């Protein structure tokens, strides 16, 4: 707004901020299907990888996507 009063209702209070909901993806890891919350996707060469922090080692990980 440019400061001009439009005569409308006053702004309603903003809701408390909530973290964005991460997309859940199943990956094949250690012979099992595991659900991970992904932070993004990366395409490299012929493959697409999903990005997440691996809870096993705490490393930023890019896992090949099966979707």
């Amino acid at each position, binding site marked *: 707004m440019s400061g001009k009063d439009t005569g409308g209702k006053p702004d309603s209070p903003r809701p408390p901020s909530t973290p964005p909901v991460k997309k859940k993806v199943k990956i094949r890891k250690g012979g099992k299907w595991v659900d991970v919350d992904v932070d993004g996707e990366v395409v*490299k*060469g*012929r*493959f697409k990888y999903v990005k997440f922090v691996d809870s096993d*080692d705490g490393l*930023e990980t*890019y896992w090949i996507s099966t979707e």
Partner: protein
Amino acid sequence: MPFTGSYIRYALGTWDSTSETYCQTNTSASDYGTCYNTHEKVYFVQSDTTTYPVGSLPCENAGNCTRFTTVSWYYTFTILDNSSTKKQVLLYFIRSKHHVNVLTLDNCGSLLIGTESVANPSNIFVPAFISGSPTRARLAAGGRCDVYDPITNSIFSVNNQTIGYRVNMEYYPNALGLKIIGAFFNAMKNNTFFAAFALISYAVEASPSLIMPLDYEKYLAFDELRSVVGWAADGVSQYGWNADDIVRVLKELFPDRAWAVYDDRRYVLYLYNLTPDYVPDWLIDKLSPTAMKVLQPPADAAVAKAWLDELNRRNAQIPAPAELP
């Protein structure tokens, strides 16, 4: 070192190795042509189809022999292994059963394994593996069959009923595409029987690769590093310890450089001072990693960029041909 591998089985006839298998080869005997204690079939050679028409031998009627009417010297088979240029281990296991008569040069049976380069198919056996002619190595005086082991460059004896002989071989192929050549040598002298079985397995070293274009002269001091993880002009095809060992060594030696380690047992590409943004697509296509893990993001983007540029320079990619209109 972790290995991956496969195996192939090959048989000429089968028999029950736990019992006394034989075929009656005395043409005067009333049970001529009968095979005893066969599990399934042995090979029986009888070229005289006038006296013994095909199908007339008792073992043919009983279904426990395969009749040969021609006399062959040997039978060969090949295994085409395109898996790797890395160290391979061959393990072969043979069992054979031959004519019950005293072995002669004409009815000796054995197994011989050699290698053949696909790139040079006329070179049947790698010369260094064969000292002397295969025939001479295969046969020996004293009525025993001898088999030449190309790796240990030695000869072991096989008698006329060899069961469970096992040989380990290890070699470093020097070219992609190596055929493993096997041959059952059995001079099929007329009126003989023969059965053999071989289980041949091969394993390929799946050692991790250090992906770091080293300057050979600059890093001459790191003899130990080179002897451990190897050194290759392309900075890619290097052998080494397991991935964790290499990562630990590299963190100590090159804390400020960018490098990657590909664990081809777990199919994980570890990145140090790198992120996937700096990994070229051709490398991903070449390695096909299941995962990339960032051990440490780049503290200095110039270091990561230098790694990428040097890797690309040493692995110049051939551009794809232009599409036809």
